[in-house]
């Protein structure tokens, strides 16, 4: 199925969340299903570092990349390639790991890594996202 419903976590906001899983080849660990925000405003894919640690990624000595948010503040993130299981596909995807993401948004699927793999149409009027 290519259409996915919006989620409402609080009956006030509508989130373009989809269920995904993340895996790490080096440890063979695969996460349970977890929500991820489909976010056309993000240049790349992000994930909370906590989840990366659970996957078994060793973040010590990893180079940091600096990102800028909408209010011009900056945060640092460390990159690693992991397996993304989403929308019936799985592929190796570069994620940037940081603990500076808000708790309620632990995974962000951005332009490089997600939007370059699918054709995505947001349709909030009908409360659905088409992902082909």
């Amino acid at each position, binding site marked *: 199925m290519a259409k996915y419903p919006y989620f409402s976590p609080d009956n006030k906001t509508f*989130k373009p969340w989809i269920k995904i899983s993340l895996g790490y080849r080096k440890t063979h660990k695969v996460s349970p299903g977890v929500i991820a925000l489909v976010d056309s405003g993000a240049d790349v894919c992000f994930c909370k570092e906590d989840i990366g640690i659970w996957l078994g990624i060793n973040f010590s000595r990893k180079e940091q990349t600096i990102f*800028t*948010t909408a209010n011009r503040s900056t945060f640092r993130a460390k990159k690693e390639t992991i397996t993304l299981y989403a929308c019936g596909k799985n592929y190796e995807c570069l994620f940037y790991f940081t603990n500076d993401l808000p708790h*309620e948004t632990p995974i962000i699927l951005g332009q490089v890594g997600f939007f370059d793999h699918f054709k995505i149409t947001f349709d909030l009027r009908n409360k659905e996202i088409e992902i082909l």
Partner: protein
Amino acid sequence: MKIVDLSKLLKKYKSGWVAIDKKNKVVAHGKTFALTCQKIKNTKDILLVPASKNYFGFVTTCNG
């Protein structure tokens, strides 16, 4: 399409992670991602959702 309304399920949780099964029941709650995963070990078709007091007001623009 009908939205996935998690508001009733998440209402009593203000932090940590909530594990929801395919029947839309909360099967576990944990303080961290790792603890929650440990609680649902070997359970299939689970959705992990972060619990929060407030889900409104998120915006992104990120430049590498």
